[in-house]
C-alpha cells in the first residue's frame, strides 16, 4: 500500500513540474547528439588504432628485414697458381685439399689493391671478405681441378659490416670510435666499388646455409628443415587423434560424468599456456622416454600435444554445422551409426576440418616458448638430416638472432620473420580459399 502511495506522489511531482522552454529541450537534445557522435568517434578510432598498430608492426618488420634478401659480393680475379696449390702437378685430391688457399686469396686481394701490401693492409683486406672465402676457393678447386693455372673471376661474400655500409646502414658521419667499421675499411669498400668489383644479388645464402657465427654466412636452412619435420610429426599425430576424439565426443559419446570431464578438460587444455606444454615435453619426452634433446621429434611431439585441443575444438564445430537431417536420412535408409558418421557426416565436414587443421598448424608453426624448454635453442650449424638430429625452428631462429648484437643479425632476424609470416599467410590464404570453395549453406 505504502508503495502505491509513494509512487503516486512521485508521479504527481513529475506532472506538476512546469514545462521546460523549447530552447532548453533543444539544447539538451543537441548535447545528447554530440555525445552520440563523440562515442561513435571513439569507437571508430579504437578500430583505427588497432589496425594501424598492425600496420606499424608489419612495416617495422618489412623495413628492417627487406635488406637481408640482398647481399653484396666482391668479385676478384683469382690466379690459381699451380706452384701454390699443386706443386707436384699430379692433381692429388689430398694435396689440393691441404693447399694454402688463404695465401691464394691474399694474393688476389693484393693484386686488386697493390698499395696495401703491408701487414696492416693485408689484415684490412682479409677482413673485407667473409671468413669462408678461402674454403669457398678450396671447394671450387676440388670440384674442378682443371681451373688450376688459370685466372678466374670469383664472387666472394662481403663481410657483414661492409655489406651493411653498402646498404646505407652505417653512418660515416658518426665519430670513428663509435663505429665498428673504421674509416680505413670504409675507404677500402669505396675503392672496391669504384673498381666495379661489388655485385649485389639475391641472398641465396639465407636459404642454403644453416646458422653461423658470421652474419653473412648465417641462413635459415636448419630452421626450415627443423620446422618442416616438426610440422610433419605434429600433423600426423594431432590430426588423426584429434579428429577421432572430436567424432567420438560429438557423435557417439553418451551423456555421463566422464564425458563431461573430457569435454571440460579439452576446453581447458586449449587455454593452457604453451610454456606449460614445454615443461610437459621436457619431463615426459626428454626425461622419461629419452628422446634426444633439441631433436625435431621432441619438438613435433610437444607441438602435437599443444595442437590437439585446437583440432578437437574446430572439428567439433565442423561436425556440428552438418544438419541433423543428413544423419536422419542416412539412418532412415538403414545405415548404422558408424556408417552415418564415416560415410556421410565426416566427408561433408571435411572442408571445415581441413580449414581448422591448417589454422591449428599455423599456430604450431609460430610457437616458440615450448621449444625453448626442450632445448631447441641450441646453435645449429649443420642442416639436420632427420627428425632425430638436433634442429631448430623458424621462430626459435628469430629468437636466437635477436640475442646477437650485430646489426646484420637484426636484419636477418627481421628477414626470418618475413619468411615465417610468409608461410603463415600462405597457410591462412589456403584455409580461406578452401572455406570459400567448399562452403555450403544448409
Amino acid at each position, binding site marked *: 500500500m505504502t508503495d502505491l502511495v509513494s509512487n503516486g506522489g512521485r508521479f504527481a511531482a513529475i506532472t506538476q513540474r512546469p514545462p521546460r522552454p523549447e530552447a532548453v529541450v533543444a539544447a539538451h537534445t543537441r548535447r545528447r547528439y554530440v555525445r*552520440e557522435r563523440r*562515442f*561513435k568517434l571513439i569507437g*571508430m*578510432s*579504437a*578500430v583505427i*588504432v*588497432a589496425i594501424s598498430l*598492425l600496420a606499424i*608492426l608489419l612495416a*617495422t618488420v618489412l623495413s628492417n628485414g627487406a635488406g637481408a634478401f640482398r647481399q653484396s659480393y666482391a668479385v676478384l680475379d683469382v690466379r690459381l697458381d699451380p706452384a701454390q696449390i699443386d706443386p707436384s702437378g699430379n692433381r692429388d685430391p689430398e694435396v689440393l685439399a691441404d693447399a694454402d688457399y688463404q695465401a691464394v686469396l691474399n694474393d688476389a686481394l693484393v693484386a686488386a689493391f697493390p698499395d696495401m701490401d703491408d701487414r696492416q693492409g693485408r689484415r684490412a683486406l682479409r677482413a673485407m671478405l667473409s671468413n669462408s672465402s678461402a674454403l669457398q676457393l678450396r671447394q671450387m678447386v676440388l670440384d674442378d681441378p682443371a681451373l688450376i693455372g688459370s685466372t678466374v673471376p670469383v664472387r666472394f661474400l662481403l663481410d657483414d659490416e661492409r655489406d651493411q655500409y653498402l646498404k646505407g646502414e652505417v653512418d660515416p658521419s658518426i665519430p670513428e670510435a663509435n663505429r665498428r667499421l673504421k674509416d680505413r675499411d670504409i675507404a677500402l669498400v669505396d675503392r672496391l666499388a669504384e673498381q666495379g668489383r661489388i655485385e649485389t644479388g639475391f641472398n641465396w645464402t639465407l636459404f642454403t646455409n644453416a646458422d653461423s657465427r658470421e652474419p653473412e654466412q648465417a641462413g635459415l636452412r636448419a630452421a626450415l628443415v627443423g620446422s618442416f619435420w616438426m610440422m610433419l610429426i605434429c600433423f600426423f599425430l594431432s590430426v*588423426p*587423434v584429434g579428429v*577421432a576424439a572430436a567424432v*567420438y565426443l560429438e557423435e*557417439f559419446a553418451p551423456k555421463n560424468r566422464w564425458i563431461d570431464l*573430457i569435454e571440460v*578438460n579439452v576446453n*581447458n*587444455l586449449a*587455454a*593452457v*599456456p*604453451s*610454456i*606449460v*606444454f614445454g*615443461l*610437459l615435453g*621436457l*619431463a*615426459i619426452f626428454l626425461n*622419461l*622416454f*629419452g*628422446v*634426444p634433446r633439441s631433436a625435431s621429434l621432441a619438438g613435433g611431439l610437444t607441438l602435437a*600435444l599443444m595442437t*590437439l585441443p585446437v583440432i*578437437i575444438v574446430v572439428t567439433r564445430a565442423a561436425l556440428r554445422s552438418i544438419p541433423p537431417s543428413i544423419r536422419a536420412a542416412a539412418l532412415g535408409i538403414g545405415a*548404422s551409426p*558408424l556408417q552415418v558418421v564415416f560415410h556421410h557426416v565426416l566427408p561433408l565436414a571435411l572442408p571445415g576440418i581441413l580449414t581448422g587443421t591448417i589454422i591449428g598448424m599455423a599456430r604450431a608453426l*609460430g*610457437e*616458440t*616458448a615450448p621449444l*625453448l624448454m626442450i*632445448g631447441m635453442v641450441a646453435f645449429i650449424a649443420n642442416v639436420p638430416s632427420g627428425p632425430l638430429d638436433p634442429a631448430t625452428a623458424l*621462430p626459435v631462429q628469430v*629468437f636466437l638472432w*635477436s640475442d646477437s648484437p650485430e646489426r646484420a643479425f*637484426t636484419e636477418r*632476424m*627481421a628477414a626470418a*620473420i618475413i619468411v*615465417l*609470416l610468409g608461410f*603463415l599467410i600462405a597457410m*591462412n590464404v589456403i584455409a580461406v580459399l578452401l572455406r570459400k570453395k567448399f562452403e555450403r549453406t544448409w
Partner: protein
Amino acid sequence: MYTLAIILVMAAGAFLFSRQRAWALAGGRSSALHSRPSYHGWHAALLSGGPAILLVVLWFLFASPIVGAIVTAGLPEVVRSQPPGTLQFFMQDVQRLAAGLPLGREASPEAIEAADAYARAMLAGNWVFGVLGVLLAGWLGWLAYRKVDPQFRARNRVERWTDYILLSAAAVSVLITAGIVFSVLFESLRFFSMVSPIEFFFGLNWSPQTAIRADQVGSSGSFGAVPLITGTLLITCIAIFVAGPIGIMAAIWLSQYAPRRVRDVAKPLMEVLAGIPTVVYGFFAALTVAPFIRRVGEALGLNVASESALAAGMVMGIMIIPFVSSLSDDAIKAVPTALRDGSYGLGATKAETIQRVILPAALPGIIAGFLLAVSRAIGETMIVVMAAGLAANLTVNPFAAVTTVTVQIVTLLVGDQEFDSAKTLAAFALGLFLFAITLVLNVIALYILQRFRERYD
C-alpha cells in the same frame, strides 16, 4: 619403423584375404552374408594390426627407460655409486654415444663400454619385439581369416572396436592433462622438499643463481616468488589497460556502428593480430617499442629502463586486443534485440542504449573475455623473454625493469640442467603455479560464460 611397415602390410593382406574369403563363402550373393565383405576384411585387419602395432609402439615408447635401467644395473660399481645427478649425466652421454651422436668431448672408457651394451640391448629388444609383433599380427590375422563365415557378425564387432578406438582418442586429452599435472607436480614436490612453500610464496627475494652448487641447496634464502608474481601482474595490468578500452570500443563500433563492408574488412584485419607469432611481438617490443618509450621518457626527464615493463606490457596489450574484442563482440551480440528496441522506443540515442542497456546486459560475457585475456597474458612467454628484464625487482613502477614467472622458467631451463638442483626444479614449481592460475581463470571465465548464455537463451 620397418616392423610397423611389415605389420601394416600384413594387416592389409588380412583385409584383402578375408574379404575375398567372405565373397567366396557367400558365393557372390551379398544377401547371404550377415555383414558386407569389407567388414570381414576390416575385422581381420583390425585384429591383426591393432594389438601388434600397440605392442611395437609401446616398446618404442618405453625402450629407452627400460634399456637404460638394465644398462645402469650392469654398470661397474664405481660408476653406479655416483650421486644420482652425475649418473644421469653419464647415462645421457651413454645414450648419445649409442645413437652415434657426437658428444663434444672425450668419452670415458666406461661410457663407451656402457654405450656398447646399450646399443646391443636396444638392438636385441628391437628384434625381439619386432618379431613378436609380426608373429602376433600373423597369428591374429590367421585367426580372423578362419573366423570368416556368412553368419559371423563382423560389422557389429568392427563397430564396437571403432567405438573403443574413438573413445581412447578422446581419452588422450585427459592423459595430456594428467601428464601435465603429474610431471609438473612431481618435480614441484621435490622442489618443495628443498625449499619451503612458505618461503616460495611469501619470500621477497628471488635469485636462484646462488643455489647452483649442490651443497648450497635449500640453504640460500633466494626462492621468493613474490617479485615474479608482482612483475607478472604489473605487465598483465598494463596489457589490460591497453587492450581493454581499445578492444571493447572496437567491438562496440564494429558490431553497432560500422557499415557492413567496413566490418567485413576490419574484423579479419584485427584477427590477424591474434595470428601473429609471439616471437614477432617480442621483436617489435624489444627493437621498436622499448627504445621509443625510452626516448620519450628521457625527453620528459624520466628514468626509463631499457627493458621497461611498459614496453612489454603495451605490446602484450596489442596482442590481446583481438581476444578482448572478439569475446566482447560475442557478448554484445548475445544481448536480445528486444532490450535494444525497448531502449530506442524510450527515445534513447544509440550511444545511450549501448552504455546503459547493452553493456550492462553484456557485462558478464565481457568480464569472462577479460579473464581469458588475462590468463593469456599471464602465460605469454616470448614477448616478456625478449623485452622484459631478468632481475627480480619488487616494484610497481612501469618504467622499471621487472621479470615474470614465464621469463624465469625459460632462464632456469635453457642451458645445462641438473635434475636434482633446486634451480631447475624451481622452474617446475613456477610452471605449476602458472598452470593453476590460468586453470582457475579459465574455469571461472567458462562458468560465467555458461551462466550468461543460459540467461538469454
